[in-house]
């Protein structure tokens, strides 16, 4: 931490938990970072309001033991992220301090570690010639970070065109070494290193165009990809009561999704859940590259027992890293669990500031804050014509599981995919508990997205999916009728309708996240299963009595489930296909009326 002398200084004037009022001796800016010195330990804090000579700062640490009169040093900078090679595979706190290099079992206030290793050497190779005109975000060269072509870019903070006066030859450099020199049109030189800083609350805008997302992002989760697909650069959210499977679902997505980089922001949730990622990801393979998952992953942890004030920052830190990698032409997946904890942190601070409360005591501008955040995601064309994307999926933890609350409602306006988890499905262990009827993907309304779906699957794909959804709806009605009128109070057809929807439920919607094979279904296999399920249940079957319906469908479902547990197109899989064929054949021979 460098503190430059000409910056303002101050003294602690008042303390309300982690909101501290500081009397200042000079100019300061909104969101400026300062350090409050508590018995030699600098506590990091951010200016959130100024009034005359008083600054209201939120301290990112527990303030127990802090005394009135304590010395405060301002930095002149806003909360910034350090961007450069060495971010991948790291584990950070909400302010991007490296957790691994901290000392001791406990997190000690003031133990502020560097985001990237400043001593490590990287093999830099230039990719442009000197004399080129460049601007912010342009690629100057690259280093290989894990498996990723990490572009070294013209610092995002530079405005206008620059002449690349000099670029250093291929070789081994530290991130702080100069690798290029830029010249502005006044002839002023700017050296460029492999790291740069960016204020996290501002969006990085180094692209020329941000079209509507159109390409499906495979997650391997059938109910998502088949029923409500998300796109590269798309946004989605997962609301659900506690224990309904938000975290498990997000973790499956983080392991399987078609992304170059995955950033996981653990925001106010359980520490053990990220310990699980620490433990598993170094062992598990990335299904897309065969390398270890940890190599493409960055974890930002502000778990529920870590300072609440850093929770807001943690989300912005995560988004800034995502934007950094997007600017390299990569597809980044950003996952945040849970955005409700972020909103609660905003609420705690707003209450301490005695601001006029909005609904449920959340700040009045919560909807704006949420929609601004979601708007930083997206698919972009970079200056050089290449493209990159940030797909963002957040979870929401509504109080009492009731979706009529400010965070859910605001998020619904900001996110394009809605994956509602249902308590009833979770209770009956129908996982993932995504409600297939309530949930939606707005991308299915985009012509350009429909076009890519049709070319990925088949021309009649959407028709088929709508058919399946309709069968689920009818199945629900049938279940209601059976419940009201009794098994023999309804027609056999009603039973068949119900069991058709059960088949779709058990075979396509439900998926065992803990089974090595079933956990991930590639698009090709999803297409195959949709077709074969539709074909099998659409046969007009004949039954003598309603008592025959259940056993037939139970057998059918069982064969399909066995298929889901097997390697696609393996011998066992084919055997089950044969069983399926026989079962249906048998049923139709049995009931010749049908032929």
């Amino acid at each position, binding site marked *: 931490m460098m503190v430059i002398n000409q910056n303002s200084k101050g003294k602690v004037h008042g303390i309300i938990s982690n909101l501290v009022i500081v009397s200042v001796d000079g100019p300061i800016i909104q969101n400026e970072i300062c350090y409050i010195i508590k018995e030699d330990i600098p506590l990091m804090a951010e200016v959130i309001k100024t009034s005359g000579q008083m600054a209201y700062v939120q301290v990112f640490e527990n303030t127990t033991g802090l005394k009135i009169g304590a010395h405060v040093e301002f930095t002149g900078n806003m909360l910034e992220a350090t961007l450069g090679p060495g971010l991948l595979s790291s584990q950070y706190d909400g302010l991007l301090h490296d957790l691994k290099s901290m000392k001791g079992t406990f997190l000690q206030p003031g133990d502020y570690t560097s985001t990237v290793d400043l001593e490590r050497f990287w093999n830099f190779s230039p990719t442009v010639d000197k004399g080129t005109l460049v601007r912010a975000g342009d690629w100057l060269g690259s280093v290989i970070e894990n498996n990723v072509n990490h572009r070294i870019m013209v610092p995002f903070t530079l405005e206008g065109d620059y002449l690349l006066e000099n670029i250093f030859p291929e070789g081994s450099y530290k991130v702080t070494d100069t690798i290029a020199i830029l010249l502005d049109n006044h002839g002023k030189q700017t050296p460029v290193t492999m790291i740069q800083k960016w204020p996290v609350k501002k969006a990085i805008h180094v692209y020329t165009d941000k079209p509507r997302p159109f390409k499906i992002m495979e997650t391997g989760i059938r109910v998502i990809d088949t029923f409500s697909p998300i796109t590269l650069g798309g946004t989605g959210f997962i609301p659900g009561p*506690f224990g309904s499977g938000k975290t498990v679902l997000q973790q499956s997505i983080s392991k399987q999704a078609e992304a170059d980089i995955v950033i996981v922001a653990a925001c106010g949730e359980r520490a053990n859940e990220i310990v699980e990622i620490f433990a598993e990801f170094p062992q598990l393979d990335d299904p897309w590259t065969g390398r270890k998952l940890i190599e493409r992953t960055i974890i930002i942890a502000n778990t529920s027992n870590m300072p609440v004030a850093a929770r807001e920052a943690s989300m912005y830190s995560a988004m800034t890293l995502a934007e950094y990698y997007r600017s390299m032409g990569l597809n980044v997946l950003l996952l945040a669990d849970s955005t409700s904890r972020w909103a609660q942190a905003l609420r705690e601070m707003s209450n301490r500031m005695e601001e006029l409360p909005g609904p449920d005591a959340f700040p009045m501008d919560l909807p704006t804050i949420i929609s601004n955040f979601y708007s930083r995601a997206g698919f972009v064309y970079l200056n050089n014509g290449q493209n990159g994307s940030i797909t963002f999926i957040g979870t929401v933890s509504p109080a009492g599981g009731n979706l009529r609350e400010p965070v859910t409602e605001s998020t619904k306006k900001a996110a394009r995919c809605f994956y509602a988890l249902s308590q009833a499905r979770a209770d009956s262990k129908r996982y993932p508990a995504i409600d297939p009827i309530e949930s939606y993907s707005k991308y299915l309304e985009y012509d350009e997205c429909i076009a890519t779906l049709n070319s990925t699957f088949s021309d009649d794909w959407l028709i088929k999916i709508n058919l399946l959804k309709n069968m689920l709806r009818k199945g629900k009605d049938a279940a209601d009728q059976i419940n009201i009128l009794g098994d023999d109070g309804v027609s056999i057809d009603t039973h068949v309708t119900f069991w058709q929807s059960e088949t779709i439920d058990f075979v396509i919607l439900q998926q065992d996240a803990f089974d090595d094979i079933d956990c991930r279904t590639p698009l090709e296999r999803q297409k195959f299963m949709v077709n074969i399920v539709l074909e099998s249940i659409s046969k007009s079957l004949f039954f003598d009595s309603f008592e025959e319906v259940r056993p037939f469908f139970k057998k059918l479902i069982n064969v399909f489930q066995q298929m889901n547990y097997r390697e696609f197109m393996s011998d066992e899989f084919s055997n089950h296909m044969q069983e399926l064929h026989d079962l249906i054949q048998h049923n139709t021979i049995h009931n010749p009326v049908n032929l």
Partner: protein
Amino acid sequence: MVGNDLAGRFFNAFGLPIDGGPKPEGKEVAVAGPSVNPIRRKLPSELLATGIAGIDMNNTLVTGQKIPFFADANQPFNQVMALVALRAKADKIILGGMGLLNDDYLFFKNIFENAGALHKIVCFANTTEDPPIERLLIPDMALISAEYFAIEKNEKVLVLLTDMTLYADALSIVSNRMDQIPSKDSMPGSLYSDLARIYEKAAQFEEGGSITIMAVTTLSGGDITHSIPDNTGYITEGQLFLKYNTDIGKVIIDPFRSLSRLKNNVIGKKTRKDHPQVMNASIRLYLDAVNAKTKLDNGFELTEYDQRTLKYSYEYADRLLAIDVNIDTTRMLDIAWELFSKYFSIEELGIKSTFTDLYWKK
């Protein structure tokens, strides 16, 4: 004040002895200290066996987990918790009693004494006779002692906190007095953080010590959407529901609403491979029985399948869900297979054929 002297002793919220013994010797530590760096935690993956199938089979616990019993005031949660505590192979059991009835306090004291486990018990108790505000100190006292044994002595510590609803009530009294804007159910807006600070002390440490937290959150009229159980559910790693089953006249662990989030770290890995699938299949079939019962109540005739599920449900509840069961997990799985074969056909299970090939007996 923490130290080895704590073992076998009973204290009040200020750490003063209430068992007539001397003041303990040891070192002073500040309560509510910093949190463990997540990097220094280990993934909790050591089975904590209780012998109760409703727990070990359906909601398997591990050391380092935090889990509450959600129970109505008239349910025997303290008894079940004491039973579990005694069966779990813990080095230390730390009881934090908040708003305990004096009878309950004596119950815990006696049951630990009779089991000859007094030497590994430390108790911090605030009874209904003490001021409610003092309750707020109990969890910190209990957990700071737990950290001493788990980190400095590498012991497996089980912390029992009862009743956390009374703790939260005390929180709301304090925050109202401080004129804070109350949130839902007149609880403080920071309830989530306040509770998380306590529960997140549960951890598995690298050197082998662990803190497991088992708590009680009493419900009013079974309402789990109330702020206290709701926030708790969002923090803990699952919850256990007790339920009186009228068919068999016993208390069971409700298989639907109960959940152990960390079970996936051990089931099928430390226990037999068929465990996850057997667990899910047996619960699904039990759900079918519940649906059949609804049909019956609504005056409809039952199908032959419904009848089978009903018969299965009685036996499943009695032999596996009841809290008086005390067997090991392999035996539990064997019983489940026995019931499957007795009442169902293989297609009705939806279990992977690799397992039915091995365990299906007919």
